[in-house]
């Protein structure tokens, strides 16, 4: 019931988001057809605007856009005129999803063990080294890490290709560059959670009953400590899956992250609104998944 209500509530939210995105991008100065070379006559520009209904009032254009959306049509791109926004999403989203998915695997696959061990071996050298690495991962931005990775592993050692997105070998460095920040975040959040959880009363009780340390950490402490990581995963996944402008640019990956940024610079109205909606849908859906995972992991949590 709760999840159904949340889903229904998402619809007016998406409407508001689309209206805001539409209004904002139209209010920005300049337009999609402004360019260096002026057409030979003002009529040409007028024809172009009329073709894409840009000569109508904005509210009317918005109405037309919503009408298209109802039929699943995101409209044509105004910059890439042989492609529709649907095309751009259909071609770019799978790539961004793969990149983001791999980065997520990397972030959790490395971040969770890192957080777990640093907490379990608290105060030892494992903890210090691990925590230092986690902080380092958070501090180095991807636009620094990516060129360094390319320089070392692609150019000097020639282990991986320098860019492009073709074979599995092309798909190693980008997820690492994209996910490393989140490795650090996940590790820190989990470590914090573990340390808090070990101080809980039920842990003391379990210890007193003679439960083994390993069983205790895995079965009881971890289950509670991982909750903050789960709630962080929702927005993190949405962030990773919608692509990264920087990583996609540096590695020349044909995802949608590049469009997310360039479309607003190009005043590609339809692409801006379409991708904003896509991002919103992903964010809402993933938050819903997070809430659902919560009830499953922690029986204390219940939604009415």
């Amino acid at each position: 019931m709760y999840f159904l209500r949340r889903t229904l509530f998402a619809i007016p939210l998406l409407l508001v988001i689309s209206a805001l995105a539409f209004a904002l991008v139209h209010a920005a100065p300049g337009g999609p057809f402004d360019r260096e070379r002026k057409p030979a006559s003002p009529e040409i520009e007028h024809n172009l605007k009329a073709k894409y209904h840009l000569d109508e009032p904005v509210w009317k254009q918005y109405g037309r856009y919503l009408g298209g959306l109802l039929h699943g049509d995101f409209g044509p791109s105004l910059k890439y005129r042989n492609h529709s926004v649907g095309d751009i999403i259909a071609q770019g989203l799978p790539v961004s999803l793969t990149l983001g998915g791999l980065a997520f695997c990397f972030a959790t696959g490395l971040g969770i063990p890192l957080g777990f061990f640093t907490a379990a071996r608290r105060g030892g050298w494992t903890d210090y080294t691990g925590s230092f690495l986690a902080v380092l991962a958070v501090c180095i931005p991807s636009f620094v890490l990516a060129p360094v990775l390319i320089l070392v592993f692609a150019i000097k050692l020639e282990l991986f290709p320098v860019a492009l997105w073709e074979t599995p070998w092309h798909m190693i460095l980008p997820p690492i560059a994209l996910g490393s920040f989140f490795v650090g975040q996940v590790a820190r959040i989990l470590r914090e959670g573990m340390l808090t959880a070990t101080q809980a009363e039920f842990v003391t009780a379990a210890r007193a009953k003679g439960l083994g340390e390993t069983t205790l950490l895995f079965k009881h402490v971890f289950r509670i400590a991982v909750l903050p990581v789960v709630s962080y995963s929702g927005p993190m996944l949405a962030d990773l899956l919608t692509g990264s402008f920087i990583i996609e640019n540096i590695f020349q990956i044909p995802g949608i992250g590049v469009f997310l940024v360039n479309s607003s610079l190009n005043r590609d109205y339809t692409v801006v609104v379409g991708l904003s909606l896509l991002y919103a849908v992903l964010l809402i859906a993933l938050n819903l998944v997070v809430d659902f995972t919560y009830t499953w992991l922690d029986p204390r949590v219940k939604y009415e």
Partner: protein
Amino acid sequence: MPFTKRARRFFRRARFLFYLAAFACLLGCSRREPPADLTIVNSSEPESLDPAIITAQSDMRIVSGLFEGLTRLEPVAARAVPGLAHHWEVSPDGTVYTFHLRTNLLWSTGEPITADDVVYSWRRELSPATASDYAGQLYYVKNAADFNTGKIRDPSRIGVQALDPLTVRVELNHPTLFFLDICAMPLASVVPRQTIGKYGDAWLNARPLPVSGAYELAAWRLNDRVRLRKNPRYWDAAHTQSRLIDFLPISTPNTALSLYMRGQADIVWDKELIPSELMDVLLKRPDFHTYPYLGTYFIRFNVTRKPFDDPRVRRALALAVDKDRIVKKITRAGEITTSHLVPPGTANYTSPEGLHYDPTLARQLLAQAGFPGGKGFPRFEYLFNSGAGGLKLHEDIAIELQQMWRRELGIEMELRQVESQVFWGTQSRLEYTVSRSSWIGDYNDANTFLGMFLSGDGNNETGWSHARYDELVHAANATTDPALREQRFQQAETILIRDEVPIFPLYVYMGVNYFDTNKIAGIWQNVLDDHPLRTIRKIKGRF
């Protein structure tokens, strides 16, 4: 406390499963395609591959491989030579061209290419519904302008007709010396009538896509690549050198350079794709090639704003600029400073000398205009756009000009940087005082530069209008005598760059591309920076 054996086993399994899953995912998303014979890095994702829509040079490089016109450019000096037309006759007054098509012309799908296809393509380019930015290049054809602007509705009145399936007759308004060059531009190339009729705006997504050029469109994936495959039915297919060509739309200089260094790309076009920090080092290498081409960087004055309505003020500002400093300190690729707008190397034309660096004369002129030592000169704004990919060229030049004018003339200028999409509109609405500008020649003739400063031309953008200038440019274009034509253009350019100065040029563009001449053959540097794909090949057997 050490972990138990069971826990360790669990870690090992979890780790193994995780890597297995990641690897399976990687395998699942990889593609298998044969490698291209030639990989070219081409600065940006094509806006379109429709000859009637494209405006960027990077897009034209691909499109001129797909579609051909009556003429085509030869690779060495980029002169127009027979393309789909085998030969032609020109009437004695230079206004009627009769083109004879080759008899072996086929679309890549097998149907014959006829004179009707040529007529259709030109009518489509000019149709108001197509809204082509470049349609103005065909305005030399009789009634083309009126049809394009909607003054006449009947396309059959345009001066292009099919006399029979192999003959096209073109009637011009007046003799046009560079008309054959225009026929070679993508906008005048021949496009498939049936496919466009059937698919409308989405016609480029039709497979197979009928093409008239040396290459077929094998794949076009957004921000990934455009792949071209040799068109075996092209009339000159025997001389097409490479079978598969990939174009990578890369706008990050470091990525382009890395791909090239690792051998994942063979050719990189454009100066913008050289990391500027490495420019000095890289330009010394033998595989980095520089060449001047028909492009000029210049400054526009808005002559409708005071005090820039006074030619003395404009001349003073132009005289106070040390252009050598700009090319040595900022552009750094060996650019040549220029005092005239039309670049050297333009066919049948030598420009008159304009204004050179002379701060003393500049101060005198400014004093004569009522601002001795810059006193009383109002603060004004300099408009420029942020360059693509964080390029700081325009900003650096703006700062340099600001300092020069302050030092030499004692005047103060504010800098106003805007996004490119804002810049073009602001400039054309004359909502600026002084602004950066540039122009790349569309064809090899002085008219492509001088024509834009005719009164009311869409690309004038200075508010400047000069009856004598207009008269001279029109008179130059009306004559077929090359010497007389040159003389009139020179008189016009003198007014533009020495007397009136609504603009003043800084330097001629220097093109840079990089490829190893030991590995790649068939590229010649020329002033149009045009390199037909059909002649480029990898040298086999040596690597």
